[in-house]
């Protein structure tokens, strides 16, 4: 059977309810509900991990248990003992889609992943529940020494490289959910781009939660060596269930001297997912780190991608879009730390709230002593579509150096009656007019995306806008 099945070719991007489907997929192994030392040991054992990793997990579990829940952000109503922490969907990872179990392959077909892979990706990882079930990387990149694998495989096959960085950028003690991830992590991407290697097309990982009350805890580590360049894209979806699921990832990135890394996320979780993610990158001399973060769906998202600019000339950019509708709270933001002179950072955050949704921008710009001539600008714009929705801004600025330039601008606007009337007077219905205004509002960020993702992003926004005007 060829990959080019009828099924995958009939896929249109952004079909209605495209993401809200579930498949009846038997699992190979499912740990019992709940979280304790036995479960953590069992996960480690299933993965045949070395002792150091098992110990790392157990120590992290202790840290998780000892830490209180964050007192800021949103209401986290998770019963940690009611969640499945590990679900193995397949015996082994496929190198071709034919090797992936049929039901799971169908899921990714419906999500358009194999099609995207053929068209414009350099490599793909597809994670279903706890494990990466499919992985590919273009041959020429592998020959140049590029590593793109799942993190479990990296523990076995690249232990030295992995151990040098794993848990060093985001230690388990960083926050309660980083500790949780460190204890029960499974899957995620491990990427190494050797010196001077530039990867033209994006590498993409797709994370799919299919089961109910599932916890997905992928762990991603990206190492961009000197002068190297990579664009990594992650997509995340899950179907709608009556009980909550939890997605709590940790993403660690190192960008060495004059390297460049762009990390694009487009997540569209179902409305009952808690999405509590820690993402941090270290940028060294003259390096550039960009986070582009599109947050749609979920019950609560708490996510603040960070760039620590460690050496002179490092640059960090965080562009984020959050869309909160009924029953959703997007507590999204960004963090820039200037730890060296002549570093520059930029945060652009756009949020949209409608139908009672709540979006918050929570951001930190910190300038360490000695980080002279550092520059940062923060722009956060909120658009509120009705009277029952809410938007908050929590900007924190900590400056311990005189010779710096830091700018902050924030705006909150309501979708204007005058703008709506203008568009309606030109024949656009109220819904079309609102969608157009929202599309324009996020356009400055969407145009930063590669074309395929920009199209997807616009379609997702249109889906969110559907039925928004009563």
């Amino acid at each position, binding site marked *: 059977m060829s990959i080019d099945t009828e099924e995958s070719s009939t896929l249109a991007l952004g079909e209605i309810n495209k993401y809200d489907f579930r498949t009846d997929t038997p699992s190979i192994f499912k740990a019992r509900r709940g979280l304790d030392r036995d479960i953590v040991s069992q996960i480690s054992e299933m993965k045949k991990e070395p002792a150091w990793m098992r110990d790392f997990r157990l120590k992290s579990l202790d840290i998780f248990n000892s830490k209180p829940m964050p007192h800021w952000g949103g209401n986290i109503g998770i019963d940690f003992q009611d969640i499945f922490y590990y679900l193995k969907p397949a015996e082994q990872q496929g190198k071709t889609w034919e090797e992936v179990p049929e039901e799971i392959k169908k899921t990714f077909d419906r999500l358009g992943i194999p099609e995207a892979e053929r068209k414009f990706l350099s490599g793909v990882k597809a994670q279903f529940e706890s494990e990466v079930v499919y992985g590919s990387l273009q041959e020429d990149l592998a020959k140049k020494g590029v590593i793109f694998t799942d993190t479990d495989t990296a523990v076995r096959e690249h232990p030295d490289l992995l151990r040098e960085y794993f848990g060093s950028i985001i230690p388990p003690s960083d926050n309660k959910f980083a500790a949780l991830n460190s204890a029960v992590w499974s899957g995620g991407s491990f990427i190494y781009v050797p010196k001077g290697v530039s990867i033209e097309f994006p590498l993409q990982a797709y994370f799919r939660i299919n089961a109910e009350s599932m916890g997905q805890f992928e762990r991603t580590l990206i190492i961009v060596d000197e002068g190297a360049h990579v664009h990594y894209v992650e997509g995340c979806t899950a179907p709608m269930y009556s009980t909550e699921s939890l997605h709590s990832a940790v993403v660690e990135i190192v960008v060495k001297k004059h390297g460049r890394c762009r990390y694009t996320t487009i997540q569209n979780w179902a409305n009952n997912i808690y999405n509590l993610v820690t993402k941090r990158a270290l940028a060294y001399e003259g390096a550039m780190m960009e986070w582009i973060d599109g947050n749609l769906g979920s019950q609560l998202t708490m996510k603040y991608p960070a760039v620590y600019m460690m050496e002179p000339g490092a640059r960090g950019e965080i562009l984020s879009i959050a869309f909160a509708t009924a029953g959703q709270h997007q507590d999204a933001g960004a963090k820039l730390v200037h730890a060296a002179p002549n570093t520059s950072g930029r945060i652009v955050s756009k949020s949209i709230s409608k139908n009672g949704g709540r979006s918050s921008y929570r951001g930190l710009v910190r300038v360490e002593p000695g980080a002279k001539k550092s520059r940062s600008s923060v722009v956060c714009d909120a658009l509120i579509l009705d009277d029952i929705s809410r938007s908050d801004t929590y900007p924190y600025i900590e400056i311990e150096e005189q010779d710096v330039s830091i700018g902050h601008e924030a705006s909150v606007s309501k979708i204007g009656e005058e703008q709506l*009337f203008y568009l*309606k007077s030109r024949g656009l219905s109220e819904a079309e007019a609102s969608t157009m205004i929202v599309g324009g509002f*996020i356009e400055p960020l969407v145009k930063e995306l590669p074309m395929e993702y920009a199209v997807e992003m616009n379609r997702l926004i249109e889906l969110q806008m559907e039925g928004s005007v009563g």
Partner: protein
Amino acid sequence: MSERLEIKNVHVAVEGQEILKGVDLTIGRGEVHALMGPNGSGKSTLGYAIMGHPSYEVTQGSVELIDSDGTRHDILAMEPDVRARAGVFLAFQRPMAIPGVRLADFLRHSVTNVRNPDRKEGQELMPMRDFRSELKSKMQELSMDSDFARRYVNDGFSGGEMKRAEILQLAMLRPRFAILDETDSGLDADAVRLASESIARIGGAEMGILIITHHEQLLEHNIPLQTHVMLGGRIVESGGPELAAELHKQGYDRIRKAYPEAAAAEEAMEAERRLEATTS
């Protein structure tokens, strides 16, 4: 009977204050009418009310679109977008900026809807190729740079650019009836002449046009069948093109003297506006 837009005894209130106090005006398709009058006399209010601005409440009277076979369409019962699809157009005195939305994308949507009044949301837009070539030729006719269509709608436009963008929309949408609200303001003499020529070319016999203006230059190529003078929320006098010339040269003193009641209403409205400005 010819096609026409029939405005009968229209009263309009904004936030409870009556601005229009009974306006009657009939515009036939292919006719040009000029509407003049001092600032605050209610000219723009008439435009907004006909287009259906939610803040402009029509408290009395009717606005109907009448087909050549005599079929009457109640404009006031329609949402603004349905009015546009029925063939009514308002060129705004101060068009709204829509940041992030390219003029071309907006216009393609707009043209598609207006030309296919029954189009449902999500249905196909006009083919890109057809739209582009039509837009390009219209822009050439209006001496507009093709880059203009890629800019965000009215965002950072100069006053003149906004007005030209409105004329471009008029040219693309080809309504049956258009109200041009001070499409000459903010333009220099050359630009007004160009606008006047363009409007004449776009309009022709196919369009009924109501030109709201303070000057006669815009009328140079659009000789009005009738010139109407509004004062205190009413049309107090109608005449030929010579009336526009007179008002442009001599102002409204003669009109105020001739219609003391309307002049008093104008003064009362003005006083109320001043009071509001100081208290809010």
